[in-house]
Structures are given as structure tokens and as C-alpha cells.
């Protein structure tokens, strides 16, 4: 299933913050988790995760540190901050509102099936 760029971009921040809220992690692991959570439907361009992480760091939502776990490569780990948790809560509230509204629209739309062609398109 194809998910539009705008939707991917809008959901990226709460997804990353949500994953980091469960514990510190690094880029590749975050990406894998996003993949698992969405059942492989949410495809990100790998590289673009990093500018996002850097932006969250600049805003103070996450902090980062280079660490070398025993037997592994040196990696940059990201950890959520208190401010990041607050931001996550706020985003969650906003998303809940949007999802609720959408749910209302879906159930209303279901009762007027089939969807007629929008009137305004005929006038163009």
C-alpha cells in the first residue's frame, strides 16, 4: 500500500518519539521498529530519518551520545528528554482528535454508499 509523503512526514515525529519513549535507541533500530509496527507498510527513505533525529535534538526533544556497546560498533544513541515526552503527549492528543474526526467521517460515509461524484467537479 502506498502512503503519501505528507502523511509519512506528519506521522514521523510522533512515531520516533514514541519509540524512543520506550528506551534509548539508534537510527537503524528505530527504522526497523517503525517497519514492524506498521507491518511493513510504512516505508521511509532510510537516510531521511537522520535529519529528523537531528531536528528533534535541536528542538530539545531528544538527546544523543556516541556509545560503543561491548562487541559492537560505535553508534550514536538517541534518548528522549522530558520535553520530548511532553511533546509526545501533545502530539498524541492531536492525533487522537484527528483520528476521532476521521472515524466519524468514515462511519458517516459508510451510510451514504455509494459515494457519488462530487458536484463541484462537474462544474470545472
Amino acid at each position, binding site marked *: 500500500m502506498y502512503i503519501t509523503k505528507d502523511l509519512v512526514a506528519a506521522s514521523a515525529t510522533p512515531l520516533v518519539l514514541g519509540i524512543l519513549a520506550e528506551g534509548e535507541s*539508534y*537510527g*537503524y533500530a528505530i*527504522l526497523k521498529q517503525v517497519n514492524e509496527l506498521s507491518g511493513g507498510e510504512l516505508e521511509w*527513505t*532510510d*537516510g*531521511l530519518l*537522520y*535529519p529528523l533525529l*537531528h*531536528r528533534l535534538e*535541536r528542538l530539545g526533544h531528544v538527546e544523543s551520545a*556516541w556509545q560503543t556497546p561491548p562487541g559492537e*560498533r*560505535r*553508534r*550514536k544513541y538517541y534518548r528522549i528528554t522530558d520535553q520530548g515526552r511532553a511533546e509526545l503527549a501533545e502530539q498524541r492528543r492531536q492525533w487522537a482528535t484527528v483520528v476521532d474526526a476521521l472515524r466519524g467521517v468514515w462511519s458517516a460515509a459508510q451510510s451514504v454508499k455509494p459515494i457519488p461524484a462530487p458536484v463541484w467537479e462537474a462544474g470545472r
Partner: protein
Amino acid sequence: MTVDELEGQIAEWRAYTHRRRELHNTDVEELEDHLRDRIAELTEAGLRADEAFLIAVKRMGSLDELSREFAREHSERLWKQLVLPAEPDTPAAARSRRELIVMVLCAAAAALAVKIPALFGQDMSGDGDVFYARNASLFALPALAAYFAWQRRVGPRVIGVLALLFAIGVFAANAYPLDEDSQSIVLSVIHLPLALWLVVGFAYVGGDWRSDRRRMDFIRFTGEWLIYFVLIGLGGGVLTAFTAGTFRAIGLDAEDFIASWLLPCGAAAAVVVAAWLVEAKQSVIENMAPVLTRVFTPLFAATLLAFLVAIIWTTNGIDVERDVLIIFDLLLVVVLGLLLYAISARDRTARPGLFDHVQLALVVSALIIDALVLLAITGRITEWGFSPNKTAALGENLILLTNLAWSAWLFFGFVRGRAPFARMERWQTRYLVVYAIWAWTVVLAFPLIFNFA
């Protein structure tokens, strides 16, 4: 594909990514870590290493898009930051920190050297001012030479030559019994800094003074240094104004402090700091001198051509006064500077273009103007006699004229596609020796020739 081949491909990818200045070292490292994870996962799933590499790179996204996103997040990276090393853990950063410390020491030495004569009763504001004028270049330039000697790791032979030359400078500035208002003293005050600046050049090139490339580097350095020195001077002016103003507001007079400490010590230290800035930013920021040259070459060419037309149109002769030579000497210096810094930045393999024609027009018109001045002046020079000032002005004019005349000839050959541009560069860098000989002659021989007049 073997592990070595995979490593080779990753190294290539890394080198390619490094070329994007939006991506810092740590970013590339982070991305590389990601790439390796992805490759490992794909090979575990059964792909061959080269296939895994290709897919991993593809999934990373196009480098253009990536750099654009990084640039959006780190827009400050497009403004190259100079002084603070961005990534503190690299060996380069350790070196630049060491250089910073040595620079501060040298600048402090230069600043303190200004105050040493005061310990022996040479007061800057009182009757010692002539002493300070004669020795001005001997406070800061040895410190600057020392900084370069340290930075270039020169051998004892070069250090010996530097010490000897500065000792000759001290001798030249102080040994001759010159009258305070003699012409020779003024000439010495003007020429000794020039002579010693070329000695600094000897330290700058690390003793390798025969190399044309290194000499050109020194010419580039000189232009940039001058610009930075002027910029620091402007900042210093603001600092001085605030120092004077704020202390006056609480009824304290800071003028003595400014005149005998802030200005002289600050100027001496600025000599070293400016040099360090030029060295530090060398590869980071585009050189300013060639940019200014680009802007002013057409303007000066237009002005000189207008001047020539005005002479012909009005048939006004040049009013040969006593000091007129100095102005035209300075004009030649400016034209030569424009020529030098255009050369210093030029791609030597590029074909002659419009700018080269403008440059040639500038040089030729300066030559014609100077020839007119010399024609007008020769008749009267016998009448005035050969005073030190007149001789020096005439000598300088001839030196610059010779340089520009031959430059014009080489330029002409280049514009017509007959001679390579490198000959011009070689001519200019070799000519530095002439300046050095002339400056030392004026400082050392003129007082003797003219009986300390």
C-alpha cells in the same frame, strides 16, 4: 564479492558522501553505521554482498535529497565556520588548538615587545616617538616570523638566517646617526617594514624561498593578511571609541592608556592574529583579495583610460611638482596589486577571456601615464638635484615600470594565445627578489650614499 571488496565499496561511498559539505564527519559515520546494518540484514536474508550493498545504498535515498534535508536542518553549515573546530575529537582539532596557543603566545610577545623600550626610558609619547617610528616593524614582525618558523617546523639554518636578517634590521634602524627631520629617516621608516615583511616571507615559505609556488602563496597570504588586518583595525577602532567614551562617562580619562597601551600593543598583536586567521581560513573561505581585484580592475581601468582621454582632450600637461612622483608610484603599486591578485587566483589553464583584456588595458594605460610623467619629470630632475627622496621615488618608479612593462608584454603574448600564463606568474614571483634588494638598499645604503641627509 569478498569482505575486502565490500569494504572498498563502502569506503568509496564514504569518500563520495564526504564531499557534501552539508554532511559532517559524524553524520557520515552515523549513515555508514546504518548502511552496514542494512547490508548485514540483507546478506543474512540470503543476498550476495554486492547486491546487498546496492540495495542498501538505494534505500538510503539519493545523496542530493539527503544533503538538501541536512542543509534544511543545519543551514549554518552552508556558512563556513572558521575559528571553532566543529568536531573536537579529531587530530586536526588538537593541532589547531595547539596553533591557537602558540599564536596567542606570539601575539602576546609582539604586544609586550612594544612596551620593552619603555623600561629603558624610551617614552612613546615624549621624545621617544622617533625611536618608535624607526623601530615600529621590529616589534611585531619577529614574533610573526617566529610563529611561522614554529608552524613550518623549520631547521636551525633557516632560524639562523631569520635571526641574522632581523639583526641587520635592528642595525639599519638604529645604527646610523640620522637627524630627526632628515629625509633618510622617513625613507627608513617606510622601507624597513617592507624589507622585514619579505623576511617574514622567508619564514612563511619555511626557508624554501626558491620555489615559485611558495612565493605565490606568500603573495596570496600578503593580500589576505592586509584585508584581515584592516578588518581587525576597524574592530579595534570601535573598541577604542567605547573605551574612551565609557570611561569618560565616569570621569576617568582613558586616553593615556589608549595611546600608550591599547593602540600600539593592539596593533602589534593584530599583526600576528591576522596572519593566524589567514592561515586558519585558507581552505575554508574564498580568498577576498581576488574578489576585490575582480571588482576594482574594471573601475581602475576605466578611470585611467578617462584620465588619458582627458590629457589628450584638454592637452593639459602634467603639473610636475615635487611630490607628483609619489602619487604615480602609488598608482603603479595599485595597478601592480590588481595584477598580482588577479594572477594569484587565476586558473592557469583557462583560456584568455574578457577580464584579461580589461586587465591588459589597465596595465597599458598605467604604463602610458607613467611614461608621460617620467618624460615631464626628467627635464627637471637635474634642476632639483638627487635628494634621497627624489632618488627613492624615481628608483621605485623605474622598478615598477620595468615590472609592468614586461608584464604587459607577457600579457599581450598570452591574450594572443602565444605564451602560457605560467610565464607571467613566474615573472611576478621572481620579481619579489628585486623588491627585497631595493628595500634593503634604501635602508642600508642610502644613508651612506647621501651622507645621512
